[in-house]
């Protein structure tokens, strides 16, 4: 069985379509919505409108680049959630009627599982069981992966996601949205010891990030009272020490989990796994623990349909199909 699957992702502010054949990505088209930048965050109604505008062109291009035609397709996959309702609705409704029109099966995919399974788009995928640290603008999770479709969240954030900690810091310092890549770049020239951000004390494998941005806010407020140019003069050092705390905190928890679950493979996934400091420290951590590190290729870290396609591939092989009544869900649980 070498299924050809068209996958669609529309959970937030990326409209994406991919074609996979037997679990290999033939095309992966991503249209990123730039309109949200000036609002400092994703505006749901604008996101929904843009998905509607882009979906046909994106699907068309994905098919064209793949060298396949619609009659070659064996199934249509879509992101059912979690995500923004209006955004998810566009991809879901399109996928349902497209599959129905072609008379082929429909496959629903959980966006968070897909992030984890993006690690199987590599030539040397992780061995089961493994742990995956999934970090994005909306999520921070440590996932125990027993098999392709058998996963358990063993730790997660109790408030903000790691990506949110970046975006909120960016907002405080007047950096453009999304702030992650900007802070990552500025941090490269900075001193990680500039300010000692407190380590959030949350028991077990869960996370908390909301205190970090509050600490940053007070730290900057106090210093700005003495020096109005404090941020501009120290932007690199502020970013370096802030980012260092986020990343080392993430990895301390992952290390703790790795010891508890005694796995031989560790993976990272999600938009924040494109972060250079996270990649660097992840490599160091794996070396120390003597486990194999896995990071998806850059194009499969941020939201993309390729990862939806690989998740759908495993569901296709397992015979897990959705019916035409499928509707999006916005949150887990």
């Amino acid at each position: 069985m070498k299924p050809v699957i068209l996958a669609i992702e529309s959970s937030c502010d990326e409209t994406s379509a991919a074609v996979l054949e037997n679990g290999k990505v033939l095309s992966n088209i991503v249209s990123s919505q730039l309109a949200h930048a000036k609002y400092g965050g994703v505006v749901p109604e604008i996101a929904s409108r843009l998905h509607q505008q882009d979906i046909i062109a994106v699907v068309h291009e994905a098919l064209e680049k793949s060298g396949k035609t619609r009659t070659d397709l064996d199934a249509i996959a879509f992101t059912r959630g979690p995500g923004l309702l209006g955004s998810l609705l566009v991809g879901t409704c399109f996928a349902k009627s497209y599959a129905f029109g072609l008379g082929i099966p429909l496959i629903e995919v959980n966006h968070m599982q897909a992030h984890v399974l993006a690690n199987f788009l590599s030539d040397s995928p992780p061995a089961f069981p493994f742990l995956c640290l999934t970090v994005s603008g909306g999520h921070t999770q440590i996932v125990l992966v027993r098999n392709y479709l058998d996963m358990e969240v063993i730790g997660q954030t109790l408030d903000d996601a790691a990506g949110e900690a970046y975006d909120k810091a960016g907002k405080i310092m007047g950096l453009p949205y999304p702030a992650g890549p900007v802070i990552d770049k500025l941090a490269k020239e900075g001193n990680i010891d500039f300010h000692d951000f407190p380590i959030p004390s949350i028991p077990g494998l869960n996370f908390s990030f909301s205190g970090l941005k509050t600490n940053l806010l007070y730290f900057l407020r106090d210093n700005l009272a003495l020096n109005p140019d404090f941020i501009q003069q120290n932007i690199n050092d502020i970013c370096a020490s802030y980012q260092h705390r986020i990343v080392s905190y993430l990895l301390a928890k992952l290390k703790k989990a790795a010891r508890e679950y005694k796995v031989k493979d560790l993976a990272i996934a999600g938009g924040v796994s494109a972060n250079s400091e996270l990649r660097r420290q992840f490599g160091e951590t794996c070396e120390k623990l003597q486990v194999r590190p896995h990071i998806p290729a850059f194009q499969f870290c941020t939201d993309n349909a390729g990862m939806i396609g690989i998740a759908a591939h495993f569901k296709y092989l397992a015979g897990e199909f959705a019916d035409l009544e499928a509707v999006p869900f916005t949150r887990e649980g």
Partner: protein
Amino acid sequence: MTAKKKTPETRQPLILALETATSVSSVAIFAGPELLGNLEFFGQNRHARLLTPMVNTLLHDLELQPADLSAVAVSKGPGSYTGLRVGVSTAKGLCMALDIPLISVGSLDALASEVVPLATELGAQIVPMIDARRMEVYTATFDAQGQRLTEVEAVVVEENSFADLLESGKVIFTGNGAAKCREILQHPNAIILDHNLSTARGMGRNAWTKFQTSEFADLLTFEPFYLKEFVAIVSKNKLI
């Protein structure tokens, strides 16, 4: 010899119509101008769940296949933003899968179309209204034949909103927006049909006209008619 069924060749082109501008989920199939069958669900927020299954059921009940369709007509609005996007996304998926054209029909045109026989009989103008929340309605004025006379607009209904129109002769107010105007439309010339809701049945006439003249929507760029630009507010609050 097998019994010969009516083949698609001897039949008028089949047009599937989808209407989701209000809370009603509705699908209809027309052979040329003639209604073959329709399904309607009167409820709240079920478009995404029900629309494709309703198309499936209706085709099945009419002993048709998706491939028998010649075009898909979709309500372009105005109406509920989410409802319209569900309809348009569903229509686009079908058109792309079946490689058939997309036809867009205004939600007010479809509403007006349903009361044309009555309007013609009474020599009345038609004012379809779709609820746009609070005291606002999406509306336009149509002649007795269902031809639109004014721009589609969002109107805040007030005491004398339709006074001039009502002085000029009989007016049929139709659609879910007409219900909230009952109070102010206490005029001998006003005929209020607020039980008439937006359904795909009313789309047939417009869809067939557009099909015959090949007035198709561009699948790639077609968007619902939102009427209003969405304006988000850029936060000016400084955090520090």
